[in-house]
Structures are given as structure tokens and as C-alpha cells.
């Protein structure tokens, strides 16, 4: 691997693209083979899923249900995100309060929120509210700790510099603490948002009358594997779109950072 002379950069890029397409093609081919071998009932087929996906999108049905799921995730992220970011910022100068809250927050973070799904359904019914509640519980703790880490990692000399320049506490919070914490806050949202979407889908799987999880459940009940896969495909697309959006936002907001290698991060 280290002895052969390296080909030109452009050629490498083409080869890499080809490799990647090849991998996908092989997987699809295997899937199609399996479909012929065991039947559409068991594994559906690449073409079948694509056709159904297009059909359901055209009819608007898939979009509608995706919209519900997305709305649940978005509402939950907003409701959880705002306090989760504000709390560490406000409590920065009250370390005693942060210390008091710590074990509860850690417990909340470590507790399996998804396991609370039935409880939320008891409280809020099978409508959107229970899904939003689940998303809130999932997103809140992730973003809280991310923000807390960002605030803690703040270089105290920057705060001191601002103080010497005569900045008030509020100015310091707005102009020093918040921008310094943004990278961490962002990392938190980048993990939390896809997780939130998945949480919404899972809650819908358990009990719902709309949304992508509901589509999956009805598809399974009707032994409609193709429908199930179409709904799963849409859910995956939503998650990927969210990740892509987060990355784009980060590139825009964090232009001031020296280039950093961000490797793959764990997801749901």
C-alpha cells in the first residue's frame, strides 16, 4: 500500500466515487436477488419500494405523515432547546445551583427516555403531544450538557479581558460566553436533532394515528412490507436531511474556527 506511486488526485477522486457507487449497487443487487429468492412479501424489492415511495409522495400521503413526524420533532426540539441552552448560561455565576442540579441532570441524561414513551402516552394521549413530550425529554438533557460543557470550557482570560474593557455582566454573557459556547451547543444539537426525530418515530410505532411510525405499524399489520420500507425510507431521509442541515449551519456559523477534523459521531 505504501510502495506503489500514487495516481493523480483527480483519478483518486473518480475511483473513490466509483467504489462508493459500487458498494451501493452491490447492496441493491443483493437485495433484488433476495427479493426474487424469498419473495416480495418477505423483503419487498428495491424497485418496489422506490415505486411505492414515489407513488405515496405524489399522492401527498407520505408527505403528510412525514410532516406530522417532523412537526413533533421540531416542536420538541424547540421546547427543550431553549431552556437547555439558557439554563447553563444563566447559572454560570451560581455554581452552587448547578452543583445542586447536577445529580438530577445526570440521572435524567442517563435514564432511558425512550422507555418512558408509554408513560407519556398515558399522560398526553396518543396524539402529537405525547410524541412532542418524548422528544423534549430526549433533546433537553443532551443540549443541557453540551451547553454546560461549552460554558465550562470558556477561557476565563477572555472574560477577564472583557471585564477590563469595562463590559457589564450581561454584555459578557451575550458577547463572550454565548459565542464561545456555540460550538459545543451546536455539537449538542447535531446529536440531539436526529435522535429527536427517531424518538418521534418510535413513539408513533407504539401508539399513534398519524406519522411515519404509524405508517410503518399499519403497513406491518397489513403485511405490506413495501409500505413499511417506504415509510422507513422517508424517516431515514428526514434524519439525513436534519444532519445535513446541521452541518451546513455549522459551516456557516463557525467560519471563524481553525479547521477541525470532525469524525463520525454516535447517533440513535
Amino acid at each position, binding site marked *: 500500500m505504501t510502495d506503489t506511486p500514487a495516481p493523480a488526485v483527480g483519478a483518486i477522486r473518480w475511483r473513490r466515487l466509483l467504489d462508493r457507487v459500487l458498494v451501493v449497487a452491490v447492496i441493491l443487487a443483493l437485495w433484488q436477488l433476495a427479493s426474487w429468492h424469498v419473495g416480495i412479501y418477505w423483503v419487498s424489492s428495491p424497485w418496489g419500494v422506490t415505486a411505492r415511495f414515489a407513488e405515496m409522495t405524489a399522492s401527498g400521503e407520505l408527505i403528510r405523515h412525514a410532516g406530522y413526524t417532523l412537526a413533533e420533532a421540531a416542536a420538541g426540539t424547540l421546547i427543550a432547546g431553549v431552556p437547555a441552552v439558557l439554563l447553563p448560561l444563566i447559572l454560570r455565576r451560581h455554581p452552587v445551583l448547578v452543583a445542586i*442540579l447536577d445529580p438530577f441532570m445526570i440521572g435524567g441524561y442517563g435514564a432511558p427516555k425512550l422507555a418512558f414513551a408509554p408513560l407519556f402516552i398515558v399522560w398526553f394521549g396518543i396524539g402529537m403531544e405525547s410524541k412532542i413530550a418524548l422528544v423534549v425529554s430526549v433533546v433537553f438533557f443532551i443540549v443541557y450538557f453540551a451547553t454546560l460543557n461549552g460554558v465550562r470550557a470558556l477561557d476565563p482570560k477572555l472574560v477577564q479581558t472583557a471585564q477590563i474593557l469595562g463590559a457589564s455582566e450581561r454584555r459578557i454573557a451575550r458577547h463572550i460566553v454565548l459565542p464561545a459556547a456555540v460550538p459545543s451547543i451546536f455539537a449538542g444539537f447535531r446529536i440531539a436533532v436526529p435522535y429527536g426525530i427517531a424518538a418521534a418515530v418510535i413513539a408513533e410505532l407504539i401508539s399513534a394515528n398519524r406519522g411515519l411510525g404509524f405508517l410503518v405499524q399499519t403497513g406491518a399489520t397489513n403485511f405490506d412490507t413495501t409500505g413499511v420500507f417506504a415509510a422507513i425510507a422517508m424517516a431515514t431521509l428526514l*434524519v439525513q436531511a436534519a444532519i445535513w442541515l446541521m452541518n451546513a449551519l455549522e459551516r456557516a456559523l463557525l467560519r471563524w474556527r481553525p479547521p477541525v477534523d470532525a*469524525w463520525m459521531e454516535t447517533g440513535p
Partner: protein
Amino acid sequence: MTDATLPIDDAAEPAASRKWLVYGGRVALALALLAGWEYGARALGPLFFAPPLATAERVWTLAVSGQMFADIAATLRVAVAGFAIAGVAGVLLPFLLRRSPRATEAVEPTVMFTMGIPKYALAPWLILWFGIGDMPKLVVVALVVFYIVFITTFAGIRGVDRRLISMARVLGARERTISREIIWTSLLPFFFTGLKIAFPRAVSATIVGEFLVSTQGVGRYIEGARQVSDTTGVFAGVLIALALVLIINALVNAIEAWALRWRPVEREMEL
């Protein structure tokens, strides 16, 4: 000329009074939450909010009758199996991929894309295949654990200092030796963090899987109680699930602390 205006300052560190304040605050908060729970039960009725006492009674009954342990055993059985299978695969694959950067690059986007698939959504389809039993849960748990361990190990391998590897190559080390000595050792912090996260996740993944399909297990109990509007049962089950995961979390942390006690690992990696 001695200075008479301000005394000399010998201030010691802020005292232990702050520690008491923190402990006191935590106890107060816990009591407040408990009180809130009791109040909620009275205000909203037992259908919404099982009272703390009733919940405790139910947990006791379940423990005494042995059902709690049977359920926990059923859940753990699947969690451990899924964790073991996926853990091994998740660790081995990055090492294999390391041999071929070309294969790694080819596979990377597909792996990242499939990571976005909500794995629980596969459960209903898996039921078609395997029926209601352990298998659908096992597959889902294995998938969840696999991605966590794979990504963590992968990141760990990539984080290994290339210069160390080059140096080892210059010295004539075989690839196997390089894998073992340098990569494995540098990898250890990531490895432990990955496993530490993955096992409790495996348990909670099993419980959630049981919501969707099962005849046994803690999750099955919770969902079963919900479907017959047995709110006390739901509360009791959730409490048990909570305790289970938190205890496992604590155990894993303890094991890690013990293992790292005599290993020269510098820092804990946080994810």
C-alpha cells in the same frame, strides 16, 4: 512605614459550608419532587398519576412474586446477547477495514447513511419474519449497539497518531504487531467509552423493543399495563426500568474505574 489602612489578607479557600449547601439543596430538591409527585397523584387522579405509595407497593409485590426478576432476566438475556454479538462485530470490522483505506472510503457513506435508519422501525417487519419472540428485539438491539461500537472504535483508530505507526513500520513491525501494540493501546480509552455507553443503551433498547413486540420482559410489563390502563403498573414498571439502567450504568462505570486503575490510560474520552 507600616501600612495601617488595610490588613494583610491570609484568606483560606472557601470553606466546607458550600458543600453542605449543595447537599442540602439536593435533598430539598428531591423532597420537592417527591412532594410534587404525591400532589400530582391527588390532583390528577390515579389514572394519570399513580401515587408514590401505591407505586412502591406494586414494585414490592412484583419483587416478592418473582415476576420482576423474571422480567429483568428476560430483558437482560436479550440485551447481553445483542451486546455481545454486535460488540464483537463493531470492534472487529474497523480493524479489518484499517487494512484497506480504499475499502474504508468506499464503505463510509453507506455506513453513515444507514446509521440514520430508525432501527426500531424495523421491529414490525422483523416480527413478520421471526414472530413474536426474542429475535426481533435481538436484531434491533444488535443494530443499535453495532453502530455505537463501530463508530467509536473507528474514531479511535483514526485518532491514533500516524507518526507512531510510521515509526513502527520503519522499525519493520508487521501489520499485526502494529494493530496490537499501537492501535489497540491507543484505542483503549475510546473502546471503554464506547462499551460503557453501548451496554446501558443495549438494555434500554431491549426495553423499548419490548414495547413493540414481546411476551416477556420489563418493557412488556410496562406496555401491557398501559394497554389495560393500569397506571400504577406503568409507573412501577418505569421505575424498575429506570433503576435497572442506572444500576447497570453505575456497574459499568465501576468496572471501568477498576480496569483503568492499573492501565496507563491518560484521559477519559467524552462523547
